[in-house]
């Protein structure tokens, strides 16, 4: 049985910046691995550490945000490379949900498929949330996928997420493999009917 994501509660870390690409989330040199284990430590590595490995000022290095489980981002988050290593690194660093203005599509799909909800807020609500979390790092934030709202500091903001993804997360259907396999003989029928490249001549 897959976990059902209804409400995610926790502190949030504010990560400013538009169009943050997956190369920044996890630099390519950390992808020479055969499993996703341990990727969490390389999350935003080049933004968090200098070339000698010394920490740089970065929200993820800020002690006030240690233990946060919600990542606040701006627009176009996760653009570029389709590497699932990016959401895997975020999840393995302890994050349970992302709140942003918009997400790149492949990133969004990869995150959903590993049970990492990404929801969006209207820009004005997101601005208020960023300011609230920056003013008070201990602020509790709630992502409610059932009632489709984000709650923090006595405020409520409506969240958006494509309905199919929301349904999948809430019902515990976010990993589709089981349902895909159930197609059974339909798969064989399509395999017989649709051409595939064959070497000949």
């Amino acid at each position, binding site marked *: 049985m897959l976990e059902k994501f209804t409400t995610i509660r926790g502190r949030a870390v504010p990560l400013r*910046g*538009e*169009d943050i*690409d997956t*190369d*920044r989330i996890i*630099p*390519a*040199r950390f*992808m*020479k*691995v*055969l*499993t*996703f284990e341990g990727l969490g430590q390389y999350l935003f590595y*080049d933004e968090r550490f200098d*070339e000698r490995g010394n920490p740089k000022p970065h929200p993820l290095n800020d002690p006030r945000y240690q233990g946060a489980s919600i990542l606040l981002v701006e*627009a*176009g988050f996760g*653009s*570029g*490379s*389709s*590497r*699932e*290593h990016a*959401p895997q690194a975020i999840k393995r660093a302890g994050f349970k949900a992302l709140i942003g203005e*918009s997400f*790149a*599509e*492949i990133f969004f*799909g*990869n995150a959903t*498929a590993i049970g990492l909800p990404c929801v969006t807020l209207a820009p004005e609500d997101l601005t208020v949330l960023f300011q609230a979390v920056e003013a008070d790092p201990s602020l509790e934030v709630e992502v409610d996928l059932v009632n489709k709202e984000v709650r923090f500091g006595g405020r409520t903001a409506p969240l958006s997420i*494509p309905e*199919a*993804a929301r*349904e*999948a997360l809430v*019902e515990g*259907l976010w*990993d*589709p*493999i089981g*349902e*895909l*396999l159930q*197609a059974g003989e*339909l*798969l064989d029928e*399509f*395999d017989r009917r*649709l*051409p*595939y*490249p*064959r*070497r*000949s*001549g």
Partner: protein
Amino acid sequence: MGKTLYEKVWEAHEIRKLRSGQSQLFIDLHLLHEVTSPQAFGMLKDLGLRVRYPHRTFATVDHIVPTHDRTEPFQDPLAQNMLEALRQNTREHGITFFDLGSGNQGIVHVIGPQLGLTQPGMTIACGDSHTSTHGAFGAVAFGIGTSQVRDVLATQTLAAQKLKVRRINIEGKLAPGVYAKDVILHIIRHLGVKGGLGYAYEYGGSAVEAMDMESRMTLCNMSIEGGARIGYVNPDETTFAYLEGRPYSPKRAEWEEAKKRWRSFASDPDARYDDVVTFRAEDIPPTVTWGINPGQAVPIDGRIPLLEELPEEERPLAEEALAYMGLKPGQPIKGVPIQVAFIGSCTNARLSDLREVAHYLKGHKVKRGVRALVVPGSEWVAKKAEEEGIAEIFREAGFEWRNPGCSMCLAMNPDRLQGDELAASSSNRNYKGRMGSPRGRTVLMSPLMVAAAAVAGETADAREVFGIGR
């Protein structure tokens, strides 16, 4: 009301609706490389599953291969491990693998079309965002994550959500010295790096119809940099002529039948689009980037914008980009010193790219102090380039002629920038740190413009350096 190619291909491959409301989509062709597949095979094993239709999956090794010395074991044991894992996984599951030295190894998005694996009307998936390249053939091709690679291996299907379609017309004739790379950089510059979210891009119009297949591949390749997961061109006689006689293309009696079927997938003349955008080909200049995403671009004879000229919401990113690049607002983009010139990647490392550069490069020399690399897209491209004397022209000019792979585009192999070196690059991403140094800088441009920059030692207008159209 007619249909678009995207809708027709979708309908032919939609198996059923899933409970979530997504569709289960059949994938005709699955391509694998070493970086995004090992975990998928691991997941398959954990679930006790096999590859369901191994005849629909093809693999090669491209991201981690050294381009200088390919002797095994590689100096980097992690890279060697990835290659070994792919060898083992493909052997165990009966998947065709184009290994090093097979004559067909190369960048996955170069070898698919070159071998005739990529065909019109197909759905194509690969754990790589530049899978959009294959859309040049009128295929619906897109990048997927590793969990989805597992899904395709196990079921040949994916859970997918239908996209909207934006038609992008390029009407007229491109000026001399202007290439498909400039067209796509121009499109992204105007529609933005998020402009394509939610859309598949259909490219058309007289300038696209006039393009050869390899130019169309360059165009579709960078759809993803414009935010669109899918980009395609309707199949036509140019497409069929390219495919005829390729190793995996249909043969003899099947050929005519295949063409008929392929033709039927093309968008109907009265197809309805969710959006239509038109550019004049004559307005498209040689275009180069100045920032840290592919939308931050200007004509080569232009200036980097002043902050006040940009919409307010773009200014913070522009400031961040200029600080990173060491450039100033209002500065001409021409004349920026470069330390590295890179011709390669799935965007621009095909034979026609190298042929075009060699034609103009002959007799010129790379400026002293510039490290210039050309990394052909595949073993086949490298071989043809040797036969045609192209490789020799590059070497003669002072370029290092390397073995095929992704190389410095994402620097998972030993080819990388050092410190804050600035590279003129024919690749697709100028992200911070993309070329392997956390402070390394990338200026994207067409391959010919990279050659011009290599010769001039600074960003330069290829039309001036090589006397084109004057």
